[in-house]
């Protein structure tokens, strides 16, 4: 069986500004980001023959293609499970390119998630339909367990109970992300670091989560261009080679509410992703210079560090207390400020940051970056990838 590793690369990245009110349609945002990514790669719309996005994007692949002047498409897909599919788009694009289903694939996410439909607001229809997901939600929604913060908080409480973790440990993640964002001009929280006291004083959203444990709500778009590593080497930018990409779903998996498995303190789906990434890339955690860890809510940053093997189970709190995730720490996490600090573009902005770290062009550049690990949304079926120099 031939491995995907090293055969494809991210050749271009593009984004709109990140805001709370973009003032334009989501399709408009998508088009801008795709133009920017193609310009960055030095490709034109006519070079594109594949499109990938993920669920919860209001823009159909064909609509975006039409808008930017992309003609014939021989591959298009929409990866399921929302933010959990951010890196999954790259896996799908890479597989398409590696197999020849397409030559140049654009991945995108565009939404007005603050000024338009806000994912953090209760949607009473979640439990309404007797689809498998509607039935799954029906064990939770009637009790008002209906927002992403609440779903994650339930895991967080058990994790705290079992591992002696405190709200301040979660707060240290928020403080680090805001520190990183404070020196990133593209970040919404540019120039606005916070202290642990700020975190502790911020209002409860769903106890044990404070406001500052929760990512932002943002308007904006990010797009990536994936093609063969070989072609990418001839393009305008140095390629971010896809050393590994994987999706993961665990035993007893549910959408945000996998409370019925043996253990509620892990993210087995991220364990699946991690094992695939290490195996496919041939790398180990010590060979990752910086990581982009999906940070919609602070507690799952700790869990992911454990699932991916950056620290032992139950020890993420110590890793973080020792400054391990800070820009000058053992494993700088989210040098751009993550979704807590830069913007919530459903993980796509994190992939763009990983590409910049590989290129050496990030505003908070980590020294000597060879490999960057990126993860996607957690609590749901998820995905991840490792980008490398080359």
């Amino acid at each position: 069986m031939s491995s995907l590793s090293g055969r494809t690369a991210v050749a271009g990245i593009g984004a709109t500004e990140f805001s709370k009110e973009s003032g334009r349609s989501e399709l408009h945002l998508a088009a801008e980001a795709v133009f920017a990514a193609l310009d960055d790669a030095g490709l034109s719309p006519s070079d594109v023959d594949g499109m990938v996005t993920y669920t919860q994007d209001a823009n159909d692949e064909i609509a975006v293609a039409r808008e930017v002047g992309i003609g014939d498409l021989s591959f298009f897909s929409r990866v399921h499970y929302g933010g959990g599919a951010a890196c999954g788009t790259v896996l799908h694009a890479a597989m398409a390119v590696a197999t020849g289903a397409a030559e140049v694939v654009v991945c995108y996410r565009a939404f007005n998630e603050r000024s338009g439909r806000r994912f953090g607001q209760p949607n009473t229809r979640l439990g309404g339909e007797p689809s498998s997901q509607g039935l799954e939600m029906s064990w939770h929604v009637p009790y008002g367990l209906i927002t992403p913060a609440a779903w994650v908080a339930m895991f967080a409480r058990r994790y705290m109970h079992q591992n002696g973790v405190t709200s301040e440990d979660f707060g240290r993640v928020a403080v680090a992300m805001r520190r990183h964002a404070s020196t990133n001009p593209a970040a919404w929280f540019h120039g606005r670091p916070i202290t642990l006291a700020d975190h502790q004083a911020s209002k409860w959203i769903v106890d044990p989560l404070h406001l500052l444990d929760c990512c932002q709500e943002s308007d904006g778009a990010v797009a990536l261009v994936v093609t063969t590593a070989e072609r990418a080497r001839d393009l305008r930018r140095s390629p971010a080679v896809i050393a590994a990409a994987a999706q993961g779903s665990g035993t007893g998996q549910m959408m945000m509410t996998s409370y019925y498995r043996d253990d509620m303190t892990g993210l087995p789906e991220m364990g699946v992703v991690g094992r695939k990434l290490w195996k496919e890339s041939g790398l180990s955690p010590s060979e990752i210079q910086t990581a982009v860890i999906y940070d919609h809510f602070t507690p799952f940053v700790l869990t992911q560090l454990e699932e991916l093997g950056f620290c032992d189970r139950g020890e993420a709190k110590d890793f973080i207390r020792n400054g391990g995730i800070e820009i000058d720490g053992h494993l700088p996490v989210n040098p751009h400020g993550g979704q807590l600090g830069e913007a919530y573009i459903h993980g796509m902005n994190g992939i763009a940051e990983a590409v910049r770290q590989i290129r050496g062009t990030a505003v908070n550049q980590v020294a000597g970056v060879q490999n960057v690990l990126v993860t996607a949304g957690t609590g749901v079926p998820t995905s991840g990838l490792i980008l490398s120099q080359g």
Partner: protein
Amino acid sequence: MTELRDHLMALADKAVAAGDGPRHAAPHPVNAVMISHWTEAMGDRNPAYTGPDAVAPPAMIQVWSMEGLSRDPAKEFRRPMDDVFDALDEAGYTGVVATNCEHTYHRYLSMGEELTSSTRMLDMVGPKRTALGEGYFVTWNVTWFSGDEPVAEMMFRLLKFQPLRPVEKAKREPYPLRPAVNDDTRFFWDGVQAGELRIQKCGGCGELRHPPGPVCPSCRSAERTHVVASGTGTVYSYVVHHHPPVPGQETPFVVAVVELPEGVRMVGNIVQCPIGEVYVGMPVRVTYQEMDDELTLPMWAPIPEEA
């Protein structure tokens, strides 16, 4: 309807035409003891009602002819309007409410006077639509005599009405957070309606499973049964929801993952417990909460720990 009215009106006309009914003797003469009880009860300290030259308070005129609590059937008498009242009761006008009472006093009464009284029906009006229900206003007059001298009169009016049917219990606002239910999950919700907390049990291998599903992942059997849970559990994890507001719920509220002794977990609200007192490991017992006219949800209340 018209027929009934005609019938009632005919009875009323007859009663009115009958004029004064027979005179009935008051059980006791005007006396100081009853006056003393009445003035004390009413808080009336007028000196005219005490002493050797005392007179009776005019407003207690009705008291003199009251029959007392244990009525002697042998002494029962019918008043002219009683036939009308019987017919109204029979027609469903069973409700009674007094609407007017006017007294006229011709003179003071002195100790020892023996009174009689007689009743005369004055009229009946109706049917009238009222807030209490449809009814007829019946008016009569009572005259009290000392010997043959009229000493006081009372005009009395009451409404005999058909009580409105008990107002149907107002439909409650539908609870907005409804579960989807299908063939795979109906047994659970049926159980909740019946006050049972049901756990799916595989008919093949006996494995318990929650949330339930159509096929046993262990043995592939689609034969489904259920057991009724003991109804106790312990809090495995919980959250306190503050923001944003959730339709149908008042913030803050608690949602918990509860571990059952049967080996499965269920999610539900913690109720009947101060929010600050919920903890991981807290023993709880199921309680059923009616959310609206159709939906009942199983929730969890703390079990007081044994001392």
